[in-house]
């Protein structure tokens, strides 16, 4: 599906550019995307490698094992093929912890680590149920404090910049739950 959406976006954009007469800007944006990609990778690549380093320290000292112990009920509920105390369970736990504290640059490399562990358990060629689950949970991540957003609202002169926190928590939980249920249903449908 990522494939079709990508094709759709590329084609529809150049067609729209022809209609709206914005071909110059569109072409410029197309050519700039190469530079933007490397700017992005340079700006987050170092900190991603840094967090992978700290993750390895936590792994070596068996700290991740302790953390995954507390999260193991959640993990076995969500991921059908992940065994307790397995490397996959440990990596998923660390990814969840990082997401919860809003450490996006830490959550991504930890999530990729978890994805690699799940790929080792994957028997098919495409994405397994557990891989879909991990990706969907991360795309609907639950965050404790949306600090960037509050700073932005306060800079824009909001009377109460923090009043969106409670609605965000409620919406986060409902969004994550609907994603999880959707993955579960799709997984169940696949087995039939």
């Amino acid at each position, binding site marked *: 599906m990522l494939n079709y*959406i*990508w094709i759709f*976006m590329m084609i529809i954009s150049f067609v729209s550019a022809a209609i709206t007469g914005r071909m110059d800007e569109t072409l410029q944006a197309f050519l700039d995307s190469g530079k933007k990609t490397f700017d992005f*990778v340079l700006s987050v690549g170092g900190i991603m490698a840094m967090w992978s380093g700290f993750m390895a320290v936590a792994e070596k000292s068996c700290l991740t094992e302790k953390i995954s112990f507390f999260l193991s009920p959640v993990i076995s509920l969500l991921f059908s093929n992940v065994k307790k105390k397995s490397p996959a369970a440990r990596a998923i736990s660390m990814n969840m912890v990082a997401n919860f504290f809003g450490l996006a640059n830490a959550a991504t490399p930890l999530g990729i680590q978890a994805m690699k562990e799940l790929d080792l358990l994957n028997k098919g060629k495409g994405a397994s149920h557990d891989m879909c689950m991990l990706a969907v949970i991360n795309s609907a991540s639950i965050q404790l404090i949306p600090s960037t957003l509050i700073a932005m*609202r306060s800079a824009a002169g909001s009377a109460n910049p*923090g009043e969106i926190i409670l*609605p965000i928590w409620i919406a986060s939980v409902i*969004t994550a739950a*609907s994603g999880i249920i959707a993955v579960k249903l799709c997984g169940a449908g696949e087995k039939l």
Partner: protein
Amino acid sequence: MRIISQYAIPVMVVFIIAYGFLKKTDVYGAFAEGASSGLRSVVNIIPPVLGLFAAIGVFRASGAMELLAALLRPVTNFLNIPESLVSFALLRPVSGSGSLAMANDIFVNEGVDSFAAKTASVMMGSTETTFYTLAVYFGAVGIKNTSYAMKCALFADFVCFVVSMWICRLLF
């Protein structure tokens, strides 16, 4: 609140290092090893990010998003949804920095305490950039067939849009 977000990273870093030291782990060696494997992951995500940035770049510059929002206008007008929110909801799953910039535009143009601004804030905070997450996670392990992940993630994004509007109408 501010204290928690300010201290989350320092506390985590010190705790991980101190714990490793107390358990007599080769902390620095493990760190270097992990950072090296992290760097390989970073290299793996370059191609999917490049593809994504190209698509987002042309999509935003060409006015395709406005055309799509215009196509949806009969439905959204009927449901009394501000047009800026529709564009925002279309951009949210595609581009993180783009939707953050757009949220700021809504804050400035319609007032930071308007319904549209509050709803955009709630949507911004309660979901991640779906395309980026999926492209990076699956790209890093070289999986092209993402099965039903995209369908489910977009469904969650749609639920997020509806729920955010509902909560903001209810609470504010």
